[in-house]
């Protein structure tokens, strides 16, 4: 137990862990994280198995990386706790008594004699120290008076505040990992969806994309209503950087997409023999639209795919949900008789594959296609986030204390010695030594010159 404590109290261990964490983190940025086995196999060949086995492909969530973080946290706790009592005593209950010989061993020191009484020297010294914002403690024994002056005592604890802050951040991370949850909600306008684990639902009233005059996207804006017990309780717009928070749940505008199940299509019908003929109809999949021409009375769209591809078995599929190669299967009717059927392609208007019952001079162009837009809203609850902010505050204030709040300490022994008074002083500052030296010299100079 004792040796384990000693092991974790070592700064050398901290240095080893800092290096290991840094190196491991670098590796995690060189190997893409969280991809599919097929992607790794294509990228690394035989090595893929080794990488997956060592969990390098999900490195930051791997057991060994978390173990490194755990040891780092343990090391931080033990290092901080084992050094704290001595620091605490030094700052808050220091020994005031000192020997002049001890003070002369300080790097910053001074010794001189004065023709005033101990009490007079003391009054002068204390006034000088007070003017420089030192807190003074004194101890008098016989003809000797010991004075201890301190300032910015809290500066001793800068590193401890940083360490505590880091531990609180790590604790926050654990809480987020265990108790936090997030989920994607895909909502079309008018749709209401239950929020998992929440006692309310959310309804998308409107989804809009705003554009700058130059044509770039200015904002994605989802106007949503929180529905509780069947009644709307709160309506608010969610934008990127402007989430909605309700009862511990937050809702973020993360993405949007088009639903290609039932897009609105625009088809233009032309005749090869009659260039002046052109008729455009708007229709949904499965719907018939009237053309009212002697050659074709109605057309319908049997099927639509956003990214047309012919699969291995010869069947027609979509490669993705992106409109990379939108295609529609149109059918033409003359009364009840189907006169043709075929695929037309929005990006390749000349490439139409018609299977006409009889030869036809009709041609079709897929003018436009618009899937109904849906908004992707991420719902999240993260009870660890407050710990993160408290930890960040501690780290930041700890840095301030450590770098810009240097504790200064001055010890003075005033002694009556053969008709005169001897003053011996020593000072200590772990940081900002130059400004401390200047302040110390200035103080001692003023004391020596005072009557």
């Amino acid at each position, binding site marked *: 137990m004792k040796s384990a404590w000693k092991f974790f109290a070592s*700064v*050398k261990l*901290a*240095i080893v862990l*800092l*290096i290991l*964490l*840094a190196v491991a*983190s*670098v590796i*995690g*940025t*060189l190997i*893409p*994280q969280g991809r599919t086995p097929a992607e790794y196999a294509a990228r690394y060949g035989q090595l893929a198995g080794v990488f997956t086995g060592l969990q390098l492909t999900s490195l*930051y969530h791997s057991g060994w990386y978390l173990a490194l973080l755990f040891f780092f946290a343990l090391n931080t706790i033990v290092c901080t706790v084992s050094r704290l009592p001595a620091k605490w005593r030094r700052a808050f209950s220091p020994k005031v008594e000192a020997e002049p010989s001890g003070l002369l061993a300080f790097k910053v020191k001074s010794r001189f004699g004065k023709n005033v009484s101990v009490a007079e020297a003391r009054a002068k010294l204390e006034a000088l120290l007070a003017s420089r914002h030192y807190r003074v403690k004194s101890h008098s024994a016989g003809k000797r008076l010991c004075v201890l002056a301190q300032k910015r005592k809290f500066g001793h604890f800068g590193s401890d505040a940083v360490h505590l802050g880091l531990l609180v951040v790590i604790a926050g*991370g654990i809480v987020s990992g265990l108790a936090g949850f*997030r989920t994607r909600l895909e909502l079309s306008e008018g749709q209401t969806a239950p929020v998992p684990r929440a006692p309310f639902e959310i309804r998308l009233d409107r989804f809009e994309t705003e554009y*700058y005059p*130059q044509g*770039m*996207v*200015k*904002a*994605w804006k989802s106007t949503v209503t929180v529905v509780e017990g069947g009644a709307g309780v709160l309506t608010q717009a969610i*934008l*990127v*950087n402007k*989430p909605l928070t309700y009862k511990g749940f*937050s809702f*973020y*505008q*993360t993405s949007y997409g088009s639903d290609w199940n039932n897009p609105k299509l625009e088809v233009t019908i032309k005749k090869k023999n009659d260039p002046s003929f052109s008729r455009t109809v708007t229709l949904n999949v499965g719907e018939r639209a009237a053309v009212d021409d002697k050659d074709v009375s109605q057309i319908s769209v049997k099927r639509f795919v956003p990214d047309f591809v012919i699969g291995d078995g010869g069947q027609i599929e979509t490669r993705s949900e992106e409109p990379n190669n939108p295609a529609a299967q149109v059918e033409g009717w003359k009364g009840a008789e189907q006169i043709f059927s075929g695929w037309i392609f929005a990006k390749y208007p000349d490439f139409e594959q018609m299977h006409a019952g009889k030869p036809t001079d009709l041609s079709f162009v897929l003018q436009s296609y618009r899937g109904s837009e849906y908004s992707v809203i*991420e719902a*999240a609850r*993260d009870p660890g*986030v407050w710990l*993160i*902010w408290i930890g*960040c505050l501690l*780290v*930041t204030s700890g*840095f*301030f204390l450590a*770098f810009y709040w240097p504790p200064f300490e001055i010890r003075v022994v005033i002694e009556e010695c053969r008709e005169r008074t001897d003053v011996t002083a020593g000072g200590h500052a772990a940081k900002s030594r130059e400004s401390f030296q200047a302040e110390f010299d200035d103080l001692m100079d003023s004391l020596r010159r005072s009557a």
Partner: protein
Amino acid sequence: MNESTLFTVTFILYIVAAFFYLAMLFTKKEKWAKTGRALAIAGLVSHTAALLMRTFQSGHAPFTNMYESLSFLSWGMVLAYVLIDRKSNIPRIGPYLMLIVVGLVALASSPLMPKEATPLVPALQSYWLWLHVSVTLLGEAFFAVAFVTSILYLTADTEEKKNKMDAASYRCVAVGFPLFTLGGLVFGMVWAYKAWGTYWSWDPKEVWSLITWLVFALYLHTRIVMGWKGKRSAIITIVGFLAALFTYFGVNYLLSGLHSYV
């Protein structure tokens, strides 16, 4: 006078400042360094004006693309140098730092960097853009000065020069590290939480900020607790600066991730 004229004036002032500093280096006459410093400060003033004008013209923070952020970083480096120079008074930092600044400004002016101010994409429309980017870049600017002083430490020939460089490096890290932590990590986490609902996603840019942070944590622990000073401290500072440089620059071009703006 418009922004690009001011930027050109700044560029010229920096070049002439670098020239005078180099004259100091080769003639060993310190008076040239004074002229160099005055020109660098004049450049800083016109650079400030250029950044302000950019802000008013575009209506957003002047660091939303590579041109703007390089310009802001070089501004931060000159500012950091002027501040450190007041404390440490080491004119030898001047020539090397100004050469790097001239290089960065040249890179920003090159045709590689599109200069037109574009409206902000939705993800960048936040006041955290100001806080996160400006504080981080200022921290990185101080790391850049620490990098120069560390190189000069390694090449210095006398003990006195070495001590001065070591102290100046520490001073830069003492400013740069808290700024980097606050701007890069803390403000970054707050903004990520506000925009994406998660304060940490192990995105390459985030991880590289963490790596940079770990290197400077290593610097402080080896220096303060184990008493490593001088050469080893200088080497760790150089590694830390390179990590910060990669976080700023390399991640965007070499690794892919969420943080694909600048």
